[in-house]
């Protein structure tokens, strides 16, 4: 029988070994899956790397995919440390895209580009923030489970997009908006056909800012105290309400920004499929990064590489894109399974008959 004993301290080497092992095991699982489909894993991984980093163009595509991941995962690192499990990044992304695109599609056509883009980004950020405040308020006031609330809001957001796209925002009955005018396109930073845009700088800035917030500000300190011990936080006079709401605003805002930035710079059109699933991938990135925004930048690039490479091997080797999801989730599974090792020492013991008898070891007092 497995027995778990709480560790006194986590050896530093475990903190590194566990994630690294997880990645390796995840790749291994991916290999096994591939073998069953008679795909050569080594060739496939090679092709993925090539597809992600092989040329300047592919590298820029990888980074373009990484941008929303970086933006969103930064915000998630903050709220997850607070134990507010916001899985609604997808919905916040969509609402952000909708809000910002509204200006692009219906705003004054003669507005200067910098002004229009700034307003669009701001509106998108606010939209995402709003979509996150709703579940945050419900949690703080009524203790409503944020996992399910944000999940539902993702769906509602998708249908709101649907509503507009099949409604007045669509073109001739098709769920496509008109193309964004030049002054509504967030600038790209490399010549065509690269789609990498200045959102990259937003992302890097966001990662750094969130890192600073977590590590260096009073607010960041308070979110960490709150996430670890709510009673102690209250006793220390931390305003739980304010802390949760502000953190939710930041996280939702970043997701909304990701939505409008990607839509405006990469897609340049509003449609049904705006890559909102990055909202879920970003969760994986944040978790794999151990909730550190700077590490999440690196992880985001790696996951983006996986996605970009995955597109490529689909075209080149005719290996279906689904393998990307298999690899990502396998790495995550291994990490989740391995996390217990950092908190508990695992030993094998004889079966003890009493549930309560184990108390005596743990407590050691009458």
């Amino acid at each position, binding site marked *: 029988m497995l027995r778990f004993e709480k560790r006194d301290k986590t050896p530093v080497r475990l903190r590194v070994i566990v994630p690294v092992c997880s990645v390796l095991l995840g790749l291994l699982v991916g290999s096994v899956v591939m073998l069953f489909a008679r795909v050569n894993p080594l060739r496939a991984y090679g092709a993925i790397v090539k597809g992600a980093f092989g040329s300047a163009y592919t590298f820029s595509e990888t980074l373009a995919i990484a941008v929303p991941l970086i933006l969103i995962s930064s915000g998630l690192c903050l709220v997850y440390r607070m134990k507010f499990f916001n899985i609604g990044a997808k919905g916040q992304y969509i609402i952000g895209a909708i809000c910002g695109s509204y200006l692009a599609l219906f705003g004054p056509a003669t507005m200067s580009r910098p002004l229009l883009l700034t307003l669009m980004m701001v509106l998108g950020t606010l939209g995402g923030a709003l979509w996150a405040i709703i579940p945050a308020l419900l949690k703080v006031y009524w203790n409503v489970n944020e996992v399910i609330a944000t999940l539902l809001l993702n769906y509602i957001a998708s249908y709101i997009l649907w509503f507009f796209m099949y409604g007045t925002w669509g073109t001739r009955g098709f769920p496509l908006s008109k193309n964004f005018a030049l002054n509504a396109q967030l600038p790209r930073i490399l010549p065509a056909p690269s789609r990498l845009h200045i959102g990259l700088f937003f992302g890097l800035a966001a990662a750094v800012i969130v890192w600073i917030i977590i590590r260096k500000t009073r607010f960041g300190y308070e979110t960490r105290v709150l996430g670890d011990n709510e009673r102690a936080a209250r*006793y220390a*006079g931390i305003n739980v309400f304010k802390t949760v709401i502000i953190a939710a605003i930041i996280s939702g805002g970043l997701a909304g920004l990701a939505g409008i930035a990607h839509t405006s710079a990469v897609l340049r059109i509003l449609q049904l499929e705006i890559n909102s699933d990055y909202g879920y991938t970003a969760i994986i990135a944040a978790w794999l990064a151990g909730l550190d925004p700077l590490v999440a930048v690196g992880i985001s690039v790696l996951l983006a590489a996986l996605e970009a490479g995955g597109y490529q091997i689909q075209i080149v080797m005719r290996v279906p894109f689904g393998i990307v999801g298999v690899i990502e989730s396998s790495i995550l599974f291994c990490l989740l399974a391995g996390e217990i090792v950092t908190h508990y020492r695992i030993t094998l013991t004889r079966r003890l008959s009493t549930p309560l008898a184990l108390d005596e070891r743990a*407590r050691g007092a009458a």
Partner: protein
Amino acid sequence: MEGQEQLMLVMSNITKRFPGIVANDHVNFALRKGEIHALLGENGAGKSTLMNVLDGIYYPDEGEIVIEGKRVDLRSPLDSMKHGIGMIHQHFMLVDSLSVIENVILGLESQGFYIDKKSVAGRIEAIAKKYSFRVDPYAKIWQLSVGEQQRVEIIKTLFKGARILILDEPTAVLTPQESDELFGILREMKSEGKSIIFISHKLNEVMSVSDRVTVLRKGRLVGTVDTVSITERELAKMMIGRDVLFRLERKDIEQGREVLKVEDAQAYNDRGIMALNKLSITVHGGEIMGVAGVAGNGQVQLAECITGLRHLVGGHVTVEGIDVTNATPCTLTSAGVNYIPADRLGVGLVPNLSTIENAMLRKYRQEPMRKGAFIDYGAACTYADGLIEKFDIAVPLRNAPVKVLSGGNMQKLLLAREIEENPRLLIAEHPTRGLDVGATEFVRKTLLEQRDNGVAVLLISEDLDEILMVADRVAVIYEGRIVGIVDAHHVDIAQIGLMMAGAVGAKA
């Protein structure tokens, strides 16, 4: 020695050791058929341990148990159940959203697949009727009062055929009426031939309902007597009886102004029972007021009410003349109230944050740690280092999570942090629980230093020795009220014992 046939249960030479303590030291205990036998003792006497041995939760290191003449080996609660032992713990093992019937049959192997609710209900009602109480088998647990829930626990044991019942401080959660009803039930059971053991620290109960009393003290058996042939005073002496230990040195200072005044405080505990029952206490600057009493008489709630963690439904709390009744913890901290809680990792420390981050929990909003919206971690580090050095805290790695520190060092950290706030009122709740000798000495010394500097100290402790050693005055708390205050210099142990056991000053 009585004939074995008369005895339901004999526990001989029971010894149970835990790291650092001998909870039961060669204890002998015998239970007759059809008697109510009380088990009396103060905190840490070993009563619960002994009964947990009987219930199969702990396995004794030495000794044997004989039930109705046959030696038994009890390795789990299921074993005990098979031998007719049923225990009703202080914390009920009931599922709130299920009904009485469902709780009774939970986990039972004998019950088959389909629940014949009518038949189970019938059996439940029959049991209840037999002992003259009523219970609605179809009621959900959350609908029942605490007293009724306790009766469900009793029914659970009887349903499984218990002939020996053990009740652990059963009246701790009951109102006086409910306690009377419980005793009525116990007497009925006794007349039906059941044998009952109940653990208590309340002398009035012991005197009124038991046939015999066994007193334990510090893990050893003091004696077993017939209730009719002993007085409360003598029992109290047996329970506590010791010579006063040496007292710690202190400055001879004049008692200062009144710092803390609690008047007629009333508050509920988490289970909805009135835990503070018009409690009044006053503490002056430059004195240590010890609050002695058996655990569960309102100590925790008292500390919580003074520190803003629990709502007072009646009465007032005043600190240095300012009314702070139901003020927020923040306000109280600003008023100079600092708190060292019993549960270190509860309200006091944040387990996964580092020592530095815990040390700054009180000061991070002020200069020099505060720099606008930012925190100057350098200043925080310096501050933490200062604490570590001044209070000699062993911290291997300042950046490691604080839960890694030993209990003693966590306590020192907590103490250090709170004392550096220069409190006017310091509330220390079981401050040396679980600490080694060195840390314990240090804490007590520090409390005395604070007292010598004019701080008002409220020391709540389960360790009577500690209180007698450290306090200037001793207040005894019983059932949510202060039943007596004595000068620690001239203490009458028996008197304190009586007060702790409710024989003096408490409501009838």
